[in-house]
């Protein structure tokens, strides 16, 4: 491990010099000490050893800056720190810490480079390393892209180790002994005579010392990492004592809700609030950007009054409905313009064999986390405080400062855990709306909650997309594959909402398709950018969420045409050993013996390489009188070293079931410029009685450290579609599948 670290670091420096090609910022930002946000309002007598560990007389706080949206981020971050620091992660406090650029996340931008994550060549490594520098420079305090663990793995353990050794050094100097003569246990330094000195008493002494850089422990010595862990939040979440943004309660707090034009930026021409104003508990109703805010003494009273307001909305440009939106995609495909073509091997146009041409479609999807969007803001002219759950808290401060006209430093963000996100908590609209409202009530906190209806009809969507596929088969083998994917650009839409332009092609449009590690002799993947209309967003696994379906369904169709076995032909084509490993494992788990295990039953294979993780899934369905029923899902993934098998299971099975649920039932459609789905009754998902048995295996054969929140999703939909084909002979080329088949 030590050697790997050194190599990585050297590559990092060399790479940054070579790739940056004169961009001095990268080097300068890397060398510069990142400002330590915790020093700013540290109480007297408290020492901060680094931005991840805070120790004072009151106790130990582990700073876990990555947002917890249900993926267990707080728990794993706390365990990484605790493993080296020698404290009990379920006893010490955890805090998301302040929003700060010190908590940059280099891994997010690293995966934005069009370098296949399975490509470990020099160019790929240096490119990724250089973007680590860029991440530091731009101060991306961000949670996303399944990067929490990869990014934190070394940083947090190093922070814990440094804190531990510095505390020991304080005791060494006090007692006049060698640091090596001391040990640590459960928040104490143990002196040679057995005396236990609590860390909390050593904080002041340790603050006066130069922090010590200590080597990391050998994984063989780990006590918690690598074994089944108990999530630090599990007791609170099982006893109703966990607190979310929607539970924020402050003295003298006002409750609010908003109703806005279904078209972002469409404005509001006029509103009739006569009925609403007369309702009980209403404090104020006024216009905000694109609509109205209702402020009351109780959330329900605000929502009820808001429902009675009659609006005359402002202009609603762009296509009004789904037909118009599909037409835009078709036009983009027909235009021949392309956004990217990262893969163009052999000659697909001249490839020999029997030809197949197909087209696939996926709908818009909403993140729809169960906790509706909400924020609490306390504004005063001097300082604004924000309580909300967000994956990019530094941007929250910037966005709120824009509304209040303050400096970013005057905005303090208290980040909270979130009742789900799936990418939703990368958006800002409800936070800036709450800031607008709070400015009308200086000195009083305002908790603003979107009604489910406002939430469902003001989504930031997973793009709808069309893929045109073609390929040839010859001699029982897949010979060529040509896939062209048309979608709006998430990066353009999402980063554009922050006011930044995005240069170059959008890798997400073709993610998990252009870099699918199959050695198909003639192969081409083309991305087509559809003009921006509806706001789109990063939805769990982003582009891979549709491309897993497009690529693996096309491949499955070709394999079927070739008369080959879905597992065997994929194994023949996969050129990446861990990818073959996961497919072999899934086949073994399922006791794979072909796609038709019995009458009325079918099995389908799905594979995707996304976020650095190869994941294979096999789904089995059976036909019943009530419709198709999912019976089993077998999932195998290679995330490298498995830090917590319990959470790996939760994340991979959760990702797969989330993918299956949407593949079966969910879509957001438009009519008259607005989403047609208003609540969960219109946006159904899988329920307990539809849930198959799920088995998960993490291979753990590589030294990588990878996140598991997203890679479980992309293989699920194609595995299901391919299983339904095996069971029924019906090929599903559009989602949701319930449009074409009945599910039990």
């Amino acid at each position, binding site marked *: 491990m030590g050697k790997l670290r050194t190599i990585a670091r050297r590559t990092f420096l060399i790479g940054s010099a070579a790739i940056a090609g004169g961009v001095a910022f990268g080097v300068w930002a890397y060398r510069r000490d990142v400002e330590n946000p915790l020093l700013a309002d540290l109480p007297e007598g408290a020492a901060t050893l680094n931005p991840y560990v805070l120790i004072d007389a009151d106790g130990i706080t582990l700073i876990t800056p990555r947002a917890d949206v249900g993926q267990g981020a707080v728990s794993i971050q706390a365990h990484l720190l605790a493993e080296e620091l020698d404290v009990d992660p379920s006893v010490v406090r955890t805090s998301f810490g302040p929003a700060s650029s010190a908590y940059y996340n280099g891994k997010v931008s690293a995966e934005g480079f069009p370098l296949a994550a399975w490509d470990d060549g020099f160019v790929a490594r240096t490119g990724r390393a250089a973007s680590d520098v860029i991440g530091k420079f731009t101060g991306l305090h961000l949670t996303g892209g399944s990067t929490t663990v990869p990014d934190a793995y070394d940083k947090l353990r190093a922070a814990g180790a440094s804190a531990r050794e510095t505390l020991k050094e304080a005791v060494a100097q006090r007692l006049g002994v060698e640091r090596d003569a001391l040990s640590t246990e459960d928040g104490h330094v143990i002196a040679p005579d057995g005396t236990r000195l609590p860390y909390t008493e050593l904080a002041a002494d340790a603050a006066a010392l130069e922090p010590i850089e200590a080597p990391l422990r050998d994984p063989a010595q780990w006590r918690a990492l690598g074994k089944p862990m108990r999530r630090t939040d599990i007791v609170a979440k099982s006893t*109703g004592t966990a607190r979310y943004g929607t539970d924020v309660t402050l003295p003298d707090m006002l409750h609010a809700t908003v109703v806005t034009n279904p078209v972002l930026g469409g404005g509001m021409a006029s509103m009739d609030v006569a009925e609403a104003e007369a309702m009980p508990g209403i404090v104020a109703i006024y216009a905000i950007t694109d609509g109205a805010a209702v402020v009351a003494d109780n959330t329900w009273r605000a929502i009820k009054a808001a429902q009675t307001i009659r609006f005359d909305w402002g202009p609603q440009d762009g296509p009004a409905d789904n037909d118009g939106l599909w037409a835009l995609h078709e036009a983009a495909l027909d235009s021949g313009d392309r956004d990217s073509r990262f893969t163009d091997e052999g000659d697909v146009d001249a490839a020999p064999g029997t030809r197949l041409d197909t087209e696939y479609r996926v709908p818009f999807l909403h993140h729809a986390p169960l906790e509706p969007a909400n924020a609490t803001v306390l504004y005063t002219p001097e300082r604004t405080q924000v309580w909300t759950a967000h994956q990019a808290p530094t941007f929250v401060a910037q966005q709120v400062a824009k509304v209040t006209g303050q400096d970013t430093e005057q905005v303090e963000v208290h980040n909270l855990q979130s009742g789900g996100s799936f990418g939703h908590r990368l958006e800002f609209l409800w936070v800036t709306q709450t800031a607008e409202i709070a400015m009308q009530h200086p000195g009083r906190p305002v908790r603003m909650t979107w009604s489910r209806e406002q939430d469902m009809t003001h989504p930031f969507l997973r793009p709808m997309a069309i893929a045109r596929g073609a390929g040839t088969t010859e001699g029982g083998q897949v010979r060529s594959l040509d896939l062209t994917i048309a979608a709006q650009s998430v990066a353009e839409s999402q980063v554009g909402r922050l006011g930044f332009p995005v240069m170059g092609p959008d890798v997400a449009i073709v993610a998990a398709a252009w870099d699918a590690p199959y050695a198909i002799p003639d192969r081409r993947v083309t991305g087509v950018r559809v003009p921006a209309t509806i706001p789109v967003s990063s939805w769990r696994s982003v582009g891979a969420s549709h491309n897993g379906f497009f690529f693996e369904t096309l491949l499955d169709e070709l394999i079927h045409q070739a008369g080959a076995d879905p597992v065997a032909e994929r194994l023949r084509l996969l050129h990446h050993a861990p990818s073959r490993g996961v497919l072999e494992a899934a086949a073994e788990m399922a006791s794979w013996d072909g796609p038709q295990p019995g009458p009325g039953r079918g099995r389908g294979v799905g594979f995707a390489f996304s976020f650095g993780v190869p994941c294979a899934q096999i789904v089995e369905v059976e036909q019943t009188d009530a419709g198709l029923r999912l019976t089993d899902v077998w999932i195998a993934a290679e995330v490298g070293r498995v830090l917590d098998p319990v959470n790996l299971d*939760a994340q991979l099975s959760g990702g797969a079931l*989330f993918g299956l649920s949407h593949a079966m039932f969910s879509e957001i459609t438009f009519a008259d410029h607005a989403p047609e789905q208003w609540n969960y*009754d219109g946006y159904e998902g899988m329920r307990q009685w539809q849930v198959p048995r799920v088995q998960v295996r993490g291979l753990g054969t590589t030294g990588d450290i990878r996140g598991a929140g997203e890679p479980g999703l992309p293989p699920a939909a194609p595995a299901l579609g391919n299983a339904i084909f095996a069971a029924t002979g019906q090929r599903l080329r559009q989602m949701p599948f319930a449009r074409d088949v009945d599910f039990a």
Partner: protein
Amino acid sequence: MQVTVNGTSHQIEVEPDMPLLWLLRDELGILGPKYGCGIAACGACTVLLDGVAVRSCQVQAGDLDGAEVTTVEGLGTPEAPHPVQKAWIEEQVAQCGYCQSGQIMQAVDLLRTTPNPTDEDIDDAMSGNLCRCASYPRIRAAIRRAAQAEGA
């Protein structure tokens, strides 16, 4: 109007059409029950009303006089969890956790009427409770575990 919540009696004056959910959350500050949909489509707001699981977003304050309400907070505490909560902890069911108060209350009701539920019983009882994180397999496992613990 008088309502008993988790053993404490409250005198309450609110509009008769205020849903129990919001009476609990915004008037009494009992935050375990969650708002997810407001239309009986998600189950996040589930509480026990006179011992029976109900969607608190659908129960009106005006119908509550003399009622006994139990929320997730009334089942047990972090220090002394209820057997169902204990099973939820042991199986590590929660991901984001937002649905789990409702899931637990629904499971308590199921196990009260059906101490040894079959898979089908679990399906029937639990299918009104949405979990966007898809923790469903562990919900099933936790109900089985709680049933065994109570039977033992």
